[in-house]
């Protein structure tokens, strides 16, 4: 089965690379730093047991000393920043993104504020969802964030529905569904791709193939080596890109966005990437394969992009260091903001009208 490339299907779509200017490139690097800095903080602050056995304590009595802790489920994506930033940099502000359980980077790349993100992960009232969502559920109607999702693959029909909405209303928006190699074996993936192709919906399916579904290696879960080849079954273009190369991701997604806005329908883009940390536990759980990791660490997407920007004369070493420090300071400020923020009280919960607690 051969991968179909965009240009093969639609020769009129420009085939030259979509290349961002210097300013945009530096902004992309800044976003990658911001995500990395945020994720490193999440890893540090994560403590699975921190909020347990607190159920009988009123919200305002939670110990301030532990209030900067992130508990429960928090999945970090260190190593995957190029897919997050490369994709979202190709979108407009009002485009939609439906994300995964590993979605901090998707939200930040789409413009989310680190302070409100961190507060949400800490369960604080000032978070994006007032503490009702948590790490896996960052929503923002202003940013077009349709939430992360704790159910693998559930976001794929949701993004497809957002694209349906845009087309139905004659808007020019597109929607992106982020998902993983693991989700490409869920029924929702196949059902959604079929409908999107049938109805030429403006949706881009971005598979971040990081080679593992939690701890299950892709080769023992996928019947074919490349997720992109699954696009052929639905008559849509499927393209493989180097997921560690932010410009390659940007280029592929940009072309898919142009095609989607022009009424050409959906695209499946498979980014070959790698997660540098364990599946769960804020990245603290054991890594799947330390030997393999050592090889992939040589292809850190941030280091690769730094090198390219300097080689191309877009950035000096001083500028780079200043940007990096700025991002890490921003993440520290987000932690301080989260710690200082109050916990929500039960009466702050947006209980659905007509639905009583009893």
């Amino acid at each position, binding site marked *: 089965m051969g991968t179909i490339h965009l240009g093969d299907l639609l020769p009129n779509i420009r085939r030259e690379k979509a290349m961002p200017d210097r300013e945009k490139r530096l902004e992309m690097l800044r976003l990658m730093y911001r995500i990395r800095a945020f994720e490193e903080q999440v890893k540090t602050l994560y403590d699975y047991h921190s909020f347990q056995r607190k159920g009988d304590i009123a919200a305002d009595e939670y110990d301030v000393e532990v209030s900067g802790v992130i508990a429960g489920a928090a999945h970090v994506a260190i190593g995957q920043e190029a897919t997050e930033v490369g994709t979202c940099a190709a979108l407009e502000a009002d485009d939609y993104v439906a994300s995964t359980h590993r979605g901090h980077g998707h939200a930040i790349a789409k413009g989310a504020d680190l302070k409100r993100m961190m507060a949400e992960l800490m369960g604080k009232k000032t978070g994006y969802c007032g503490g009702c969502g948590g790490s896996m559920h960052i929503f923002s109607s202003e940013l077009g964030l349709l939430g992360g999702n704790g159910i693998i693959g559930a976001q794929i029909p949701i993004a497809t529905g957002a694209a349906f909405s845009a087309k139905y209303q004659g808007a020019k928006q597109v929607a992106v569904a982020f998902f993983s190699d693991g989700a490409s074996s869920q029924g*929702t993936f196949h059902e959604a791709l079929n*409908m999107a192709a049938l109805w030429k919906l403006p949706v881009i399916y971005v598979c971040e193939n990081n080679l593992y579904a939690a701890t299950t290696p892709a080769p023992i879960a996928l019947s074919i080596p490349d997720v992109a080849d699954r696009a052929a079954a639905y008559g849509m273009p499927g393209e493989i890109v180097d997921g560690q190369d932010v410009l390659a991701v940007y280029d592929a997604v940009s072309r898919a966005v142009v095609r989607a806005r022009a009424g050409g329908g959906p695209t499946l883009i498979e980014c070959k990437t790698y997660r540098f940390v364990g599946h769960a536990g804020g990245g603290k759980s054991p890594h799947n394969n330390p030997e393999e990791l050592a090889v992939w660490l040589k292809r850190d997407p941030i280091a690769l992009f730094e090198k390219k920007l300097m080689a191309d004369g877009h950035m000096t070493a001083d500028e780079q260091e200043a940007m990096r420090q700025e991002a890490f300071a921003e993440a520290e400020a987000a932690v301080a903001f989260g710690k200082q923020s109050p916990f929500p009280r039960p009466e702050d919960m947006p209980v659905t009208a007509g639905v009583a607690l009893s």
Partner: protein
Amino acid sequence: MTMREMTYTEALSQALREEMARDETVFTIGEDIGPVRQPENLWDQFCERRTWQTPISESGFTGLAVGAAMTGLRPVAVIMYCDFVTVCMDPIVNQAAKVHLMSGGTIKVPMVIRTPAGAGTREGGQHSQSLESWFVHTPGLKVVMPSTPADAKGLMKASIRDDGPVVYIQHRLLHPIRGPVPDGEWVVPLGSADVKREGQDVTVVAISYAVHKALEAAEALAGEIDVAVIDPRTLAPLDVDTILQSVEKTGRLLVVHEAPGQGGAGAEIVRQVTEKGFEYLRRPPRVLGGLNTPMPYSPPLEDACLPQVGDIVRTVRGLVRE
């Protein structure tokens, strides 16, 4: 108010057509709702732009409807048989029901999941269930089960206009039932029960098609036992006050529905009445549900699994004489 006589299906169709004409964002999506079958006579008027005939992908199109509802539309997703919700429980339970809360109240999911349900049509174990209790047990969902043509219309309009997800369950045997339906703007608010018949001796709360069986039983008992019949119309939210007012008078409660009694909506109604009106009860409350078994095909077996008029009569007599 001008009334017109029509079937349950015609009333439902009228509600959908009026709401789709009133609001561009309302559309229907589901299997086999195209030009050939036209279950609600929508295609000729609205064609494919508003009537989306899907592949057999309940999970996919229900999830798509959730995404559409989150981004400005008001989908009415049609699940052809209630039994098929098993393959799209995730978009209903984990997505539609939770987005409002998980987003901190910032994103609404105004959608209707409409599904024919119920037994008596001799369709076997996978085309006969009434699964309302699964949805009653899911916070964030509203559950609507109209029993008359007028309610079919008024509750569909209310469901479409509601800003949250509503599961609208219609018993298949109700489809040909005729009744008066108000013309034009006719909206029955969610969470309002209807007293179908006043009575002093026993309160029978009946759900969906069982309302008609309960009314028949009440008629059969007239002169012997004075039976009140209440149709809750929506199970979530539940108008327990109307039920309590009746139980205060009668002191006896029987809930009738087709779904098995074990873990059913009747158990929930009894719980609420017991907690709030225990002092009114002169007898232990009863639930008459379907037998606790998967549905068999053979007509006499199927009939034996469902609460029938005779069963209601006997149970009501038992409540009075015990």
